[in-house]
């Protein structure tokens, strides 16, 4: 039983990172109907940005908590700006082009980010310094570290913040309006280009945060890590009903749990095959995702 709970806790931790990343996929898809293939790599860049700060700061004698926060903020800001740059360069000129063109551009952006990271940091693994305290506590035979709890709380806070932003502010309302009908939103005086940039900024910030946390948690990062995480996060976005923000949060946790339990009870080698099988099954049985709204095509 305690084993089971341990897997549950681990799954939720991984799931929190996936949720954060899935949000970017779902927001960007919601607003410009693009599967942003570069998003997983934004996550990877976030991990490397945090790594750079940590390595630089490790020499200085600064409290650990401060360094970690600095790495997190730096990672988030850097990826946020990077997301904006990618959107400006690779996507904005193609917003009204055929859908496939922008998709290919996204594949190009993904490859460009991976290659840049490889050229700068090398093809091997980079190791985060072991900064997080290993201290923790036990509940019902399950061991939790404070760092684990802290990161989970952080992820949840970010998600709640995003939800409030999208549903309670004027800019968030503009975003939702844009997702419904871009032309109508433009006619209502919404600066469409700027709102799209904002969406990319927010989505990338969340992915960057997830990247830094993943680095802190697992300590091993490399230039290709964004691919698999990206696939899983995208699966979560679809599972939650693409374009659906709370759906992506919940589905991210579900995929995390699935991953954790599959690795424990089946085999780590088959984990991703299982993730995709579940995805295909869900899509066949309920093509709009677990919480997606039915899109009725008007005839």
């Amino acid at each position, binding site marked *: 039983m305690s084993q089971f709970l341990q897997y549950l806790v681990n799954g939720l931790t991984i799931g929190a990172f996936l949720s954060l990343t899935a949000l970017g996929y779902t927001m960007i898809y919601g607003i410009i109907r693009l599967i942003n293939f570069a998003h997983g790599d934004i996550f990877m860049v976030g991990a490397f940005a945090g790594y750079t700060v940590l390595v630089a700061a490790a020499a200085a004698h600064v409290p650990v908590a401060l360094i970690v926060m600095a790495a997190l903020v730096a990672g988030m800001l850097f990826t946020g700006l990077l997301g904006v740059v990618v959107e400006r360069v690779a996507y904005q000129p193609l917003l009204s082009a055929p859908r*496939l063109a922008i998709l290919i*551009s996204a594949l*190009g952006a993904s*490859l*460009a980010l991976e*290659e840049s990271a490889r*050229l700068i940091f090398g093809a091997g693994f980079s190791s985060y310094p072991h900064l997080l305290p290993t201290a923790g506590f036990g509940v019902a035979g399950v061991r939790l570290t404070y760092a684990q709890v802290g990161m989970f709380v952080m992820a949840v806070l970010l998600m709640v913040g995003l939800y409030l932003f999208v549903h309670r502010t004027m800019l968030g309302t503009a975003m939702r309006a844009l997702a419904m009908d871009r032309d109508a939103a433009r006619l209502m005086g919404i600066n469409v280009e700027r709102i799209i940039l904002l969406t990319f900024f927010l989505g990338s910030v969340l992915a960057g945060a997830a990247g830094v946390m993943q680095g802190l948690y697992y300590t091993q990062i490399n230039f290709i890590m964004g691919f698999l995480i990206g696939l899983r996060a995208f699966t979560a976005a679809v599972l939650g009903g693409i374009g659906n923000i709370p759906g992506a949060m919940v589905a991210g946790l579900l995929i995390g749990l699935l991953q954790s339990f599959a690795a424990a009870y089946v085999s780590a080698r088959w984990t*991703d095959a299982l993730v995709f*099988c579940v995805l295909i099954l869900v899509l066949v049985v309920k093509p709009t995702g677990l919480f997606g709204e039915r899109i009725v095509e008007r005839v």
Partner: protein
Amino acid sequence: MPRVLGLVSERRAAAGWAVTLAVALAAPLVMGSYQLSIATSVLTFAMLGLGLNIVVGYAGLLDLGYAAFFAIGAYTSSLLSLEAGLGFWQTLPFAVVATAIGGCIIGYPTLRLRSDYLAIVTLGFGEIVRIIATNLTITGGPNGLYGIPAPGIAGVSITSIPGLYYLGLAFTVAALLLSWVLSRSWLGYAWRSLREDETAAEAVGVPTVRVKLLAYVMGAIVGGVAGPFFAARFGAVDPTSFTFLVSVQILLVVIVGGMGSLPGVLLGALVIIALPEALRAVADFRLLIFALALIALMVFRPQGLWPAPRPRGAPRGRPVPAAPLEAAAPATRGQPAAGEDLLTVAGVSRRFGGVRAVDDVSFTVRTGEIVSIIGPNGAGKTTLFNCITGVTKPDAGRVVLHGGRHGRRVLHRRAPHRVVAAGLARTFQGIRLFDGLSAADNVLVGRYCRRRRDGWRTSRGLTGGLVGVSGATHAEVRRWLGFVGLGDRGDSLARELSYGERRRLEIARALASEPFAVLLDEPAAGTNPTEKNELMGLIRQVRDSGVSVVLIEHDMDLVMSVSDRVIVMDQGQMIAEGTPEQVRGNQRVIDAYLGGEEETAAETVEEVLGWRS
């Protein structure tokens, strides 16, 4: 004139292909073995690109896991030659069958998915296949299989680099020919209509589910040949050859060249495979440069390097002068005699959530009639059409079409394409043409369910005598274009036509299926008075040619002047039925439109509805 132009460009294309083939044949004479093996890789990806082009380029279905078919072909062939001792050529049919089955497996569950979900499901499928190959013992796990014998011809095994190059060239030419024949076949037209508008394709008679599945199967089969070739060439396969990146590369071959374009695919293969090799001088930066070049290409030339030619009108004959009424009597076979029951709608209901969009509606249309359905917005008229034509399944009720080979046909619960085949065609409220196809091709797709009646013989000689579109079909297309007055617009793209022309083209597309009755959904919406008059004439001509007409319309002038009978709906229910005069005087109808409980002044009625009481 278009005929001459068509022939010239066709000859030029043929010359281009001949030169390309000659260059490809001569290449080993001048190329070193390194270059030649790159060229063989280019050919492999050209084959894969041709296969994927069928799925993505022709049918417009996004596939991000195409490497799976490549893998299935390669592993099937390798396992059979290693475990069962079969020769390369003997394994080929098995590899093709295995990939075709793979095509069905991936195709079947995804048939009803939106294109974005299709992307992720195909991606997932590709990953699943790769993970299976990595983890099973029989596939050799991560190390893969090796020692696969080379292909042999007449007892001589082909191991030399030029020999393999020529084998690859032969396969590529075969894939090219297959693609070319398919693109000109009925299937090719059906795929393109699917790509343009799936709902409309189904509603004009294309069995979209089967046609989609065939796209996956045909596309997979080509990959199923490339796989064994790849395995036999290197004598080994391992899972790293079938990653997501390979699927992306194959997709790029199709996109960079230009979707649906055969020369484009070849050029794409050259660019995607040979360009990174050519960039070896900048060694480490080549993938980065390649990635940036890809973005630049999409930003500055999203249609690809060598896009498919603008589709020309299918019939290359003399343009037919506009609207030759007498010549256009349709061969509507076996319908009930004039005045007899043709279409019976009995107790049809459909609710959406708590709303009864259509509530127990019953009426009959007789042969040779024009029946109008009117009612305020939201009365359920279009939903009723959708229930009759199979686009929406009714919750209750029966729809029966009389006449035809079987005497009568029950239509409710049938797929839309079967309803068309039974003899009931329709148009849409918001015009739904295949915008990227020529006007003539739009009508041609409307002929899909009568293709067997037209026969397979083609007027264009060798153009795929087996699957090509017959001369009789082209004659039909010309006839219907002429009937609606578009005889000289066959070569124009549907999107280039004026609003009124588009309305008429949609009617021609519906009529091309030789229906007993045609259902027109607000044909006069947005037309000006001149166009409206022409439309009235056209509707009468359709009726006079023996096709009954059911009309949804808001324009009272038009309804009152052309209709034999009028059915009035309000809030899902039929509230009146009768001749225009009877309906005009019906108080419930006036109330439904003007919402008045109290006595409505005659002037208001006249002002709003244009009825003179």
